[in-house]
């Protein structure tokens, strides 16, 4: 089948602002959008810039806005888009460096701000810190995050706010706050309870719809809000 791939291109050395460019391609229904991007880069225009690494939905490199929704290019099949005109734009709210490549540093700043590691000041036990399957299940969803930024850059508050940590960082915080072995809630509170923290979430649910790992992002954020509110952290 013939498809038209429209890509929002931007070259900081030449363009004043991003512009659309169209490419006609021969595609199979089972092709991924990533395959189409490769086809353009390899056969039509080698200057096209985008990120990819594993190509199998695990590394989280190729989140982009495809037909108006944030998805991973490597997990989106042409047939699932249901149209022969496919638009691809960089994810929003982060500075575009070139074409589909954005500066992820603000995203990782927010990630680091919630201290996404185990904090426990007690002396280590002789063997491992034990945890029951029930205790492990409480934070299971958050462990699936691949830091692709599809959720954070789908959030209308993140686009305009400038200080909001964003859904992904709060999901990462949830993963540790609700871990029975972790004792760092008080250390994470300054970031999460501040004006740029959990309270900026206005439950627009774009994050939950966008997550390629099907994490119930909004639900986890609401659990963090309640933990702050009811003094569990």
């Amino acid at each position: 089948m013939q498809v038209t791939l429209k890509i929002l291109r931007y070259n900081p050395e030449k363009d004043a602002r991003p512009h659309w460019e169209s490419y006609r391609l021969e595609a199979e229904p089972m092709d991924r959008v990533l395959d189409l991007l490769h086809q353009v880069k390899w056969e039509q225009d080698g200057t096209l810039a985008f990120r990819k690494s594993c190509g199998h939905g695990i590394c989280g490199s190729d989140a982009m806005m495809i037909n108006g929704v944030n998805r991973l290019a490597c997990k989106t099949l042409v047939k699932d888009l249901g149209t022969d005109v496919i638009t691809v734009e960089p994810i929003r709210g982060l500075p575009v460096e070139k074409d589909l490549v954005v500066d992820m540093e603000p995203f990782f700043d927010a990630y680091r701000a919630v201290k996404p590691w185990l904090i426990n000041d007690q002396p280590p036990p002789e063997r491992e810190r034990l945890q029951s399957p029930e205790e492990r299940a409480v934070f299971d969803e958050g462990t699936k995050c691949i830091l692709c930024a599809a959720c954070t850059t789908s959030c209308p508050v993140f686009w305009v706010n400038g200080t909001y940590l964003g859904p992904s960082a709060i999901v990462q915080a949830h993963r540790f706050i609700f871990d029975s072995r972790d004792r760092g809630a008080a250390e994470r509170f300054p970031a999460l309870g501040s004006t740029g923290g959990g309270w900026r979430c206005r439950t627009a649910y774009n994050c939950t719809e966008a997550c390629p790992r099907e994490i119930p992002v909004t639900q986890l954020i609401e659990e963090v809000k309640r933990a702050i509110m009811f003094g569990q952290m």
Partner: protein
Amino acid sequence: MYRGREGQWAFYLHRISGIAIILFLALHVTEISSSMFGPKWFNALLKFEENPIFGLGLVGVAALVLYHALNGLRIILMDFTSWGVKLQRQLWYAVWVVYVILGFPMLFIMLKHVFVGGA
């Protein structure tokens, strides 16, 4: 335009209706406080506001208040219960069902008041 689903539109509409309500409130307070200049001015202002344009504006504000109130209940359920978030989409449709049930009699009463008159 980002192609978000129900939650995104619920959020945008909540924001827009919230801003419209606060603007109306500012206007309303200004109007009422004009009574401190005496009955002459206040009555003249009220007379001016009998124009159906203001009546229709009020119908619009009431429509936004009703949405903001009902979606506000939806947000409370999402914030304070463990199940609200999982049912957010259904809750939004429920908001619109209640909106129509409460809104239609309200619309009828208000339009009658604007165009026919009487309390």
